[in-house]
């Protein structure tokens, strides 16, 4: 039993609420990502989970047991730090078995477990190296091995990939995800990178200003954003949001303009860049830039004061300065009220 349950957790620093009445649960053997912009309280939340930070109020349950007032070492969690937190004077082997030594595990057992963990992360040949002589990715693996060897079923990760280059990051994403599934770990993973969240998570908990904005599977967050914040945080380029007040409704697809005109509480509409296409009539926009990515091109255009991104296959004949009309299927429209909250119309 290693599921995690967070109940009404709050952490106050001075008069700032870093984490504000947060509740969610992490089912056993699943991968949950705490996602949000920097300063949203995701790291503080993680640190309260493992006991490095105390909670102002609320409770943390791990495996059904209330661990809120338990010290970090006795909560049954391991952690991978952003900077990896490797001991620079110890070689890889000593780094991996640091905790085993603390817990006075017999020597033979220690060696066996260290070897096994090193093999899992592919470090077997590097056990005698000092951290300074390892690449970023290898250091990351040492941190993972240290976490594996502790044999805790809950593993917490604080932006573990942010110090790696893009290629390595993609590799390690796969590796961490498959490791989690192979070892049946319950992982809570903090990141501000929505690509990591989308590609790894079973559940994403999106945070802003200490509060949960939305929690759900990556697909739920992408296809049914609960608010404009979720809509714009998940997805690259972000969802296009148009203010009703600032738009001419007649430029919208016909059925949509009817809906908008009949419902005065609608404040904003949103549409994903991949659902927009260039048409003969529709929203008039002026192109101001194009980004060619090979398989697709992202076109950046202005509609009045708003910026609109849309995707085109391959390399369309569009240049900055072009004036185009765009449209999208009505059912791909996300409708938000005046407070930027999703409206339960569909």
């Amino acid at each position: 039993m290693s599921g995690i349950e967070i109940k009404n957790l709050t952490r106050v620093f001075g008069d700032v609420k870093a984490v504000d009445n947060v509740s969610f649960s992490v089912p056993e053997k699943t991968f949950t990502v705490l996602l949000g912009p920097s300063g949203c309280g995701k790291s503080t939340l993680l640190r309260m989970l493992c006991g490095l930070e105390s909670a102002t109020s609320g409770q943390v349950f791990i495996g059904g047991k209330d661990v809120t007032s338990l010290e970090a070492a006795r909560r049954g969690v391991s952690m991978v730090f952003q900077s990896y937190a490797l001991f620079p004077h110890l070689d890889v082997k000593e780094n991996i078995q640091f905790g085993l030594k603390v817990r006075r595990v017999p020597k033979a057992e220690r060696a066996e477990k260290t070897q096994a963990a090193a093999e899992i992360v592919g470090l077997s040949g590097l056990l005698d190296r000092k951290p300074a002589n390892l690449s970023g990715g290898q250091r990351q693996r040492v941190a993972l091995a240290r976490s594996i060897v502790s044999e805790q079923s809950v593993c917490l990760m604080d932006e573990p990939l942010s110090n790696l280059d893009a290629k390595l990051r993609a590799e390690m994403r796969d590796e961490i995800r498959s490791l989690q599934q192979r070892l049946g770990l319950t992982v809570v993973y903090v990141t501000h990178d929505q690509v990591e969240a989308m590609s790894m998570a079973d559940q994403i908990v999106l945070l802003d200003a200490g509060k949960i904005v939305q929690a759900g599977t990556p697909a739920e967050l992408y296809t049914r954003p609960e608010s404009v914040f979720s809509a714009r945080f998940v997805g690259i380029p972000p969802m296009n949001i148009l203010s009703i007040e600032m738009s001419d409704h007649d430029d919208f697809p016909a059925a949509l303009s009817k809906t908008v005109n009949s419902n005065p509480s609608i404040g904003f509409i949103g549409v994903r860049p991949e659902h927009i296409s260039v048409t003969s009539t529709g929203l008039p926009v002026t192109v101001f830039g194009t980004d060619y990515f090979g398989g697709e091109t992202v076109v950046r255009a202005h509609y009045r004061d708003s910026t609109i991104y849309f995707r085109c296959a391959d390399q369309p004949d569009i240049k900055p300065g072009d004036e185009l009309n765009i449209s999208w299927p009505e059912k791909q429209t996300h409708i938000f009220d005046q407070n930027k909250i999703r409206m339960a119309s569909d």
Partner: protein
Amino acid sequence: MLMETHKRHLLGWALFTPAAILLIAFTHYPTIATFINSLFSNSSIIRPSRFIGVEGYQDLFDDPVFWKVFSNNIWLALGTIPTSIGLAIIMALIVNKAVPGRSFLRIAYFTPTMLPMIAVANIWLFFYAPEIGMLDQVLGLFGIDSHNWLGNPSTVLPAIIVMTIWKEAGFFMIFYLAGLQTISPELAEAAELEGSSRWNFFWRVQYPLLLPTTLFVLINAFLNSFKLVDHLFVLTKGGPDNASNLILYYIYETAFSFLDISYASALTVFLLLLLAVTALAQFYFVDKRVHYR
């Protein structure tokens, strides 16, 4: 083109000269002059100076007072260095934590280092004075008889060792504090999660990571134990019977009280060699050996 080069040379010399004058006048020339003096006898009105070669250095090895002050110096080093390093580490660990009044504590620990050695000696003279001194006053409350701490050959060196520790430990604390602050706080958190106790963390992580600091401090402390003599002028003048005399003070006495410039020069060259060897060891070890990167 040629003018340009001339100008650049001129500028180079202009920048170099002030530093060169100072270095040559106050470091290089005196060193060389001292070495030459040590090879010649003292001149007087009736006997001019003559070349004596290494005779001065032979005298040094036959001089029981020299061996006495040299061993005093070694005892001073042995008595002060380990204790003040130990205290420095403890103080640094204390003020590195978020304890209440931390900046006050830091200043308090560092104050003895900021005081001139003469002032320190004056303070401690008051502590050590027989009958009226603070130490005797306090001991008197427990019925312990008065001691002449600085007047007794068996207590004078320990008394000076205690004072030197008081003066030095705060200085070394600064280096340890700097060393501790280069250790990432995440290491402490990682260790905490593994269930490592404070002592275990100190012994397995902080202490090894402070090894470069320790080596640096060790060598500086050793050099300091030969360089610090100001307090002897106030406290003991090297007495009684050279029981607290140190090499540098002995050189001063030889040169300016006994007016034996030749022998004083030989002593100086010996001390310079000793310090130079130590400094070289410092470069070698600190720069090459104790590095993790």
